[in-house]
Every structure is written in C-alpha cells, then in structure tokens.
C-alpha cells in the first residue's frame, strides 16, 4: 500500500510539473530572468502547490501518525546555518545555469533526450559526492 501511494504521488507530482510547464528549462529560466522577458508562471505553480500543501501540513502536524499508521517525519531542525545557505547558493547557481532542478530533471529522463541524462547523471554524482563527504566527515 505504501509503495502504491508513493507511486501514485510520483505520477501526480510529475503530471503537475508537466501541466505547469516546469519540465521545460527554457520556461523556468524565463521565470528567473526578471530583467528580461519575464514569465511569472513558476510563481503560480508554487502558489497552487502551497495552497494545498498548507492545509496538508497543518493536518499532518496535529497527528504524529499518518493515515497508513506510519510515523509522520517532519524536519526537526530550524537551524539557519552555513550549510543551509551555502547549499542554497550552490543549488541556485546550478538551477540558474541549466533551468533544471531535481524534480523536472528526473521527470524528463525518458522524454528529454541525452542532455537530460547528462544533467541527471551529473546531479546524482553531486549527490553521491555529498554522501561521501558526510561519511568521511568532511561535511
């Protein structure tokens, strides 16, 4: 059941990205290009998602156990530290260069061609580098 709901949630998430135009890096870059021919569409995606998410998380915060009986895992830390800020700067820089963030990139693997594979492979390498850094105690 858990696997089925996760699969369904993944499909709906991907459909949302496609319907919202977010699987097209050119459209994402048009949102980030506030000094150019600005396309505010991405803000509408965020607005729609948060409008539902707000009530979802408000309900989840009241119950420690999910509807399937699994403990609700909310991030425990509220820390605003160097890792958070440096990570956000590095992520933002990559996002601004390619117009891809993890969701749209993974969603486009079967349909976007070789360039998407290249981006996703590099992204997985970056994630693996982070995992390695944590295990070795560098980070």
């Amino acid at each position: 059941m858990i696997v089925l709901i996760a699969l369904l949630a993944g499909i709906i998430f991907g459909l949302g990205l496609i319907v919202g135009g977010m699987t097209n890096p050119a459209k994402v870059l048009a949102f980030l290009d506030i000094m150019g021919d600005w396309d505010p569409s991405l803000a509408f995606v965020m607005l729609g998602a948060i409008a539902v998410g707000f009530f979802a998380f408000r309900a989840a915060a009241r119950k420690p156990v999910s509807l399937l009986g699994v403990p609700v895992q909310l991030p425990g830390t509220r820390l605003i530290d160097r890792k958070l800020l440096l990570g956000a700067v590095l992520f933002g820089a990559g996002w601004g260069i390619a117009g891809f963030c993890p969701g749209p990139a993974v969603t486009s693997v079967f349909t976007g061609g070789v360039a998407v594979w290249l981006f996703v492979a590099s992204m997985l390498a970056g994630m693996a580098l982070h995992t390695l850094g944590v295990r070795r105690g560098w980070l």
Partner: protein
Amino acid sequence: MVHFTPLESLVGGLLIGFSTLLMIRWLGKISGISGIVGQLWSAPANDRAWRFAFVVGLLVSPLVYALFAPLPAVQIVASTPWLVLAGVLVGFGSRLGSGCTSGHGVCGLSRLSLRSLVATLTFMATAMLVVWLVRHVFLIG
C-alpha cells in the same frame, strides 16, 4: 510575457500540492525530490521502497500525460560542459542545503518554516543573479 501560462501553471501547482498531501498524510513523508533521490541507496533498506516507487512515478508520468495530450517540449539551452557543472551543483547543493524547490520551496513554505523561507529566497536570488549575469552581462544564450 509571451509564454505566460497562469491557469495551466496554477493547475499544475494544485496537482503538485495534491501529491504532497498524499505523501504527508498517508506516508508521513516530505515530498522533497532531492532528499528522496539523494537517499535512494544510502537510506536504510526498509526506507527505500517508497523512494523507488515515487521516482518510478516521476519517470512514467510523461508517458501517462502522453496518453491524453502531446508532451510539451523540453528546451535545454545550456551546452554540455555547463550542463555537467549545473548538474553537480544542483545535486551537491540541494543535499548540503537539505532541500530544493520541492522540499524547501513547496513543503517548507507550506509548513511556514523560516529555515525553508531563507533557503528558498537564497536559491531563487542566486539563480536570478546567475541568469542575469549569463543573459544580460556576459550576453550568452
């Protein structure tokens, strides 16, 4: 604003919100893509199945979409070396900062988390600065 699609994007956002609702209310999980993907292999064995299922869902979603309408184009402007650099930065940065557009941007802001608001404003401002530099200062692309 040639390509502005407020209605489609709002509907897309509502779908993403509904997916987030399924994840948190039924599974008790945050639908943050960088966290789900980044811990596909490093998570404990009993914490992997739902991650794989979610990623499979993302991967097949365009095939589901294509049953109803032609898929929109995926237009990539960055050249190969830039794509590789961007990928590494997105992968490493999102893990170091504990989240990306979905984890901090959608889930975090939905929870009214100050930490996620700071992260979201930081990566948005950085991305906007990079696009400004690329397009309007160095005039590439």
